[in-house]
Each structure stands twice: as C-alpha cells, then as structure tokens.
C-alpha cells in the first residue's frame, strides 16, 4: 500500500521534479493532496494526479490521507511548514533543500522531528546519487587523502529540463540579472545562491571536508552566480557557479584531487531522469577508469531511501541533517560577508 503524499508548493520543484519522480514509484507513494498559496497551480497539478487541492497548508495537513509531507515551497517557509507538519501528527517530511535559512530554525526543526519521531529527509539528490557512493568508496579504498575540491557549475534555464518531464500552463518567468554592482545586492545574491543552489553539493563536500574553517574569497558572477573559495578540515574548496539565460547543456561537476588521482563526478541536469552521475578517475600514470552508471537518478534514489526510512529499514540521521543545514548557513553568511569585504577593499 503506497504512502499518501501531500505536496506543499506547486512550483517547478513540485510539478517538474517531485510529481514526475513519484509517478515512477507507484508501489511506494501516491500523491493525494497538493497545496500552495492560492496561485491556482496546485489545482492544476492535483487534477493531473487525481489528488485534492487546497490554498492553505493547514488544509493539506488536516487531510487524513496525507501521511507523508513533501515541502516544495520557497526556502524561507520550510521551517515553519515542517513544524506545522510535526504538530499535525504527520509521519514523515521530505523537505526540499535547504532545511532552513537560519541555524536556529534548523535546530528547532530537527529537534521537533526527533522528539516527535517524525522521519525527516532533505531532498539532496546529489547526495543520494549512487555515483557519489562509488566516488566515496573509491576514495576510501584507493584514492588516498583528499587535497582539494572544485565544484564547477554552468546552468541554462531550468525550463529546458522542465519541458522534458512535464507540461505547464504557467511558464516560469525568465531570469533577469540582479544589479550585482550594488555590494549589498551582490552579498545577498551570493548568500542565497549558497543556501539555494550550492546546497545541492554541500552535504557531499561535508563528507570529505567536514569542519568549516572560513571563506578566503567570494564574489558574485553575472548574470547570476558566484565564485567562492573556502577551507574545511584543512582542505581548500573552490566553487564556481553561473546561471545563464541560454546556452550549453548543464555542466555540473565535482573534481576531487588526491595525492595520485583526480576524481571527476559529473551530474546530469536537474529535473531529468537520466540515470546516475558519472564517476571518472584520472590516475597520475594516465589511466582513466570510469565506473558504470546506475539506472536510477538521484531523485529516485532519495525517494527510495525515504521509503526505506518509512519502512524502518534505515534510521533517520538527524544529527547529520542538522550539521548539513548549519554548514550551509555558516558558509552562506561567511561568503556574503566576504563579498562585502571585497567591495570595501
């Protein structure tokens, strides 16, 4: 019997990401309710899925068929909606990243879920991607200590990938670049992009370099992006990300340098279901090893992992979820401060 899922939010995160993913897992999950702030999109999405729609989160949480809540709303609403789901006695919450936008909110949410025994999972598809497990295993058995990490991301508009997994009556507005020449705007943009976009990879980076030490530099990138260097556990990490209005297919890769190898993890574009990431190992003697890809993408893997939690096969890692959330907030705050410092110099 599948678990009844209530989806809070009716933007692309719901319509182009979680609903098409859940359609691939009918044995485990059934969407029974969709709510949003009254835009009308919830009704559109619910109708396609034979689910109820509402304009209030409270209505969704009052629906007894909703056992599992998927939080797909804007980041600043996540914490309050998770707390409401806990208060409503729901069994489990899968929250799109980030868990919260402040450390205090993250702590409150995790403590509430832990105390109430509510299963909690953050939608970090890169962390759930089977390829990441292979990369980590490779590092453990033969890769040696990590010396540096680089994350390089160039993204065309998401709509390109929405179009291959769904249809929409309400097109997503195209991106306009903010006025990054204003230092406060630039600092805010960099901070928000770290908790909203870099957060895809921060749990992976924490796997390799857990203890945040500080930001060495940060700058905004036009039209919308950032370049940030930070250190964690003595390892330098360099992030370069830009979101574009057109252009090449999505490039999303993590490169890990060890004493004798370079390990390259290339993720497929967001939203699509094209299998796992690719892991390629470049040895210093010229050998290149590529691990076979898994047919499941990270979105499917994360929902399957959620089903395992619900079925009692795996525990909820509350402390790790909290540590990931706090790491993201600390990095975002430090990077925003570095952007302001850079503007002063």
């Amino acid at each position, binding site marked *: 019997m599948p678990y009844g899922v209530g989806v809070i939010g009716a933007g692309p995160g719901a319509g182009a990401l979680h609903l098409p993913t859940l359609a691939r897992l009918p044995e485990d999950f059934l969407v029974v309710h969709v709510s949003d702030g009254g835009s009308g999109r919830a009704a559109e999405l619910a109708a396609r899925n034979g689910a109820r729609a509402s304009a209030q989160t409270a209505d969704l949480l009052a629906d007894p068929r909703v056992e599992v809540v998927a939080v797909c709303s804007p980041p600043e609403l996540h914490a309050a909606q998770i707390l409401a789901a806990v208060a409503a006695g729901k069994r489990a919450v899968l929250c799109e990243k980030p868990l919260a936008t402040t450390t205090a909110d993250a702590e409150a949410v995790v403590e509430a879920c832990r105390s109430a025994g509510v299963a909690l999972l953050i939608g970090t598809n890169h962390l759930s991607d089977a390829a990441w497990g292979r990369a980590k295993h490779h590092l453990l058995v033969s890769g040696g200590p990590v*010396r*540096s990490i*680089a994350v*390089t*991301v*160039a993204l*065309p508009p998401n709509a390109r990938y929405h179009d291959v997994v769904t249809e929409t009556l309400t097109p997503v507005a195209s991106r306009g670049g903010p006025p990054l020449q204003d230092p406060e705007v630039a600092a805010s943009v960099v901070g928000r992009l770290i908790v909203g976009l870099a957060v895809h990879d921060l749990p992976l980076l924490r796997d390799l370099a857990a203890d945040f030490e500080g930001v*060495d*530099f940060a*700058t905004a*990138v*036009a*039209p919308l*992006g950032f*370049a940030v*260097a930070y*250190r964690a556990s003595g390892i*330098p990490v*360099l992030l*370069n990300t*830009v979101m*574009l209005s*057109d*252009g*090449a*297919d999505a*490039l999303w890769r993590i*490169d890990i*340098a*060890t*004493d*004798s*190898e*370079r390990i390259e993890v290339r993720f497929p574009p967001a939203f699509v279901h094209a299998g796992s990431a690719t892991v390629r190992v*470049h*040895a*210093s*003697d*010229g050998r290149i090893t590529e691990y076979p890809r898994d047919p499941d993408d990270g979105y499917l893997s994360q929902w399957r992992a959620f089903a395992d939690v619900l079925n009692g096969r795996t525990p909820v890692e509350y402390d790790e979820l909290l540590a990931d959330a706090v790491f993201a907030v600390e990095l975002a705050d430090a990077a925003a401060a570095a952007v302001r410092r*850079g503007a002063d*110099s």
Partner: protein
Amino acid sequence: MSTAVYTTLPEYRVAIAELPLSARPASRDAAAVHVVTGNGRWGDAVLAAADAGARAIVVARPGPVPTDDIRALAHDLTGLPVLVERRLLRSDAALRVAKTLLDPRVVTVACAATPDALPGTVRDAVGWLRVLARGTLSLRSRGRGTALMVTGDGVPATLLATVVETGEWVRGHALGETVIEVESDDRGTRTIVHGREGETVLAPLSESPARVALRRALATLESGASPGDLRNLAHDTELAEAIVGTLGHKHP
C-alpha cells in the same frame, strides 16, 4: 628559401627535419633562429644567443625564473623576437581556444603538481586562466592555494593550486553560454566545447610542441610581428609567485 636554425636540443633537431622546406640546421654563429633550453637560468642563454647574432630565439620549456628577470630580458631584447614553448600551455592549443571563446562569465583553472614542479605548473595554469579570460588579470584576493583575479572587463577568474605526491595537471573551464573545457598534462592538451547541442571534443593536436614553436618563430621572422611571449610569461609568473607563496613554497 629556408631559414637557418641553431639548436642542440634533440626535439628541435627533429623539428628542423620535419620542416625541410622552411628550416635548415646551422652553426652557433650563424644569424639564425637560436633555440635555447629552458633549464636553470635560461635568461643567460637567451642573452648569449642574442650576442651570437640570433635573428629570433626560442626558449624550450622554460623553468620558473623571477618575474623581474623576465621583464629585464624583454626590455633588453626589444626588437628581437623571443618565443617561448611552454610545457603545459601549448600555443596552438591556446590559439584554438581563443578562437572558440565567446563571452565567458567566469573562468576557473585548477592545477596540481609535486612541490618541485609546482611553480612552473601554477605559472602555466595562470597562463590558461589568462587565455580563457581573454585578457590580463589582476589579483584581488587569495587563500591557501586559491586566488581570485579579475580581467579589465571585470570577469572573475579563479585558481586552485594543489600540492600532490605524483602527477601534474592543469584543468580549466570558461563558463558562459558556450563552455570551454581544457585539460593539459604530460600527455598533451584536450579541449571540449560544450554547446546547446552537446559536446564537441576537438581533434588532438598531433604536431610536436617543438615544431609548433619553431614554426611560430619562422612565421614571426617572415611577418615582422612582435610576439608577446615574454610579456605573457612575466604576467603569469608574477601571479604564480603570489599564489605559490600561499602554499608555503618559495618561487625560484
């Protein structure tokens, strides 16, 4: 009509043999293109070649030397073409990338090398950053092995340098509507162009680096153009010195 070339380096003798219509071997005193090794204090060898009457000079795979020495050399040899064959920054690969680039929004290069090789590797990595960014760079900020630079147009350029036990590589990206990816190591340079319709892996560069450098020298003589190799080398070395210093290694 072939041009006389003086060299004692085996790979350049082969290059002369591979340019049978354009080049011919010559003795040291001839008013020839002189090829000097980039080992040690190669600036002295360049000056000696100039004193011997060289019409143009090729520096083969120069090791790192102080920026001031390179600038002094460029100043002293104004009017004499000096070309530089760089180990991890092939001029033909750089030219091909420069022709492919559109407007990058941010460029980034990572490199790794053993402690001994690090200064030269970082210098060539900065060179790739300059090529990908389409202009000279100014240092804005740095961390331990990381640096933020900007072009005159304000395009950010970031670098990550890593000390490793074995191997040496440079990998770079120009991120924009078109994405250019380059990798360079002792096996050569690979270039991938990412566009809307997918990836294009550019054909391998099969010409030997020595032949490329010698051909450039001959073309420079013919055209009378002034190569910017020493100026670029000084630019890249100066930034590399600042970055290598953050890793606790002294630049030569």
